[in-house]
């Protein structure tokens, strides 16, 4: 009796999940200005500094172990915030890029496609990076810093600039980037 009950519950949970997740697909869209306003500024150099292994080594050499661990934890928590912020920006840029892909100008749609791809790549990176940063917080000796996030964010920023340049020549990119 237990196994059928488990299967019934699994089926019902799956049904609820599918209805919940499937509802609203294909209804994306929205106000682009509002979306762009949601972009949050990120200092990529500061993020690079936070995950720089040489910086970490420097702190380890100069600080007592207990203090180093505490500071390292703070630094990794800050890095997690940066990554989350970058992932949020990437999600917004995905939508902005999807909108720009509908543009009749092939140059704009190609640039938008590149932006979407990089924004998605960054978001995938972010999903991997957050657990790595938390792990690094617990095990400071391991080298788990996600350097690729900073590179991906830079690439994405450049593509936003390129897209902004193509769409509105006298204008530019969101200040948040």
């Amino acid at each position, binding site marked *: 009796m237990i196994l059928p009950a488990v299967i019934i*519950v699994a*089926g019902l949970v799956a049904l609820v999940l*599918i*209805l919940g997740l499937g509802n609203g697909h*294909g209804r994306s869209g929205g106000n682009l200005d509002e979306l*762009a306003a949601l972009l949050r500024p990120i200092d990529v150099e500061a993020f690079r500094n936070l995950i720089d292994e040489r910086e970490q080594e420097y702190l380890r050499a100069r600080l007592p172990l207990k203090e180093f661990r505490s500071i390292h934890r703070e630094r990794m928590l800050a890095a997690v915030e940066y990554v989350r912020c970058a992932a949020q920006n990437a999600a917004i840029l995905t939508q902005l890029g999807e*909108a720009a892909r509908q543009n009749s100008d092939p140059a704009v749609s190609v640039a938008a496609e590149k932006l979407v791809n990089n924004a998605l790549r960054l978001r995938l990176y972010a999903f991997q990076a957050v657990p790595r940063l938390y792990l690094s917080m617990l095990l400071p000796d391991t080298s788990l810093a996600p350097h690729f996030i900073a590179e991906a964010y*830079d690439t994405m920023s450049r593509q936003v600039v390129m897209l902004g340049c193509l769409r509105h020549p006298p204008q*530019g990119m969101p*200040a948040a980037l």
Partner: protein
Amino acid sequence: MGASEAARISASGARFLCCRGFEQRSMNLLRAFQTSGLGSCPQSQIKSFAGSMRGTNIPIGMLFLRYYLWIAPHLFLGMVVAGFLRRGLQKQLPIFSTYMVFALVNFFTLFGVSLVMPLNSYRWVLLWGMAVSSLLQFAVIYELASELILSRSSLAVPLRNLLRGVSAVLLLVAAGFSGAFSSISVQRVVNVLQVVDFASSVVRCGLLIILFVFTRALQISWRSRSAGIALGFGILASIELAGVGLRGAFGKSGYITVDLVQMAGFHVCVLIWLVYLFLPERNPAFTGRGLPESELALWDQELQRMVQR
């Protein structure tokens, strides 16, 4: 409708009751035959079963419901196929089109086989139809995932790896649980049907949930028609999964009810496809200018970073 006519319909209805194209309905049919102590000749089986059905005095409303849930979804599916062909959508979604055509062919084949061939032949046709149908459904899920990847090259590797990994895990889970169905009946074909049904439902459910979660997490959208197809399949797979459990929980007494629930699930699935087929394909509706004007200094600064690299 006379009593004999009703009995005839009851007999054939019981036989075809749950024929949705990839049917578990043979389960209740087989058990009904087993419990009524039938001979090996299909005709005598039908007659004996007709007798037992007459004895149970099925209300005409229930009889109508059974026939409706058996036939109507296939009529609607025929409309979806016609709509697909008229709009040339078979080029966009060839595997899904093939699946629908197969479901219709399977439905008519089973109907014909059940009228003229021995019951055992019918069971094997049913089993093979179900196996092919399950494979086609997996192929449709792959097709839907490919559509996501097509215009987003960055998703190709992670999505493929994710689907492979999830499929492997789900297959292991399904194989583990399937052991519990190995002795549900003395007849091998029934056991195989049950296992195929369960395993296929588990894997389809899992893959569709993963696809939905993936698209939601990355905030990307399917075209609305593909989302409708995925939604329909998802509802069908989850109801079929729950049905396997319900059949196990309630035993013989619940077979007909469970099959009705599953047929209703297929009906809902086909209606969703029909609605999404006739809804206009919507691109995401955006308003506003998008990337706002920025300060010239930031614009220059970012350009300089580009040049430096």
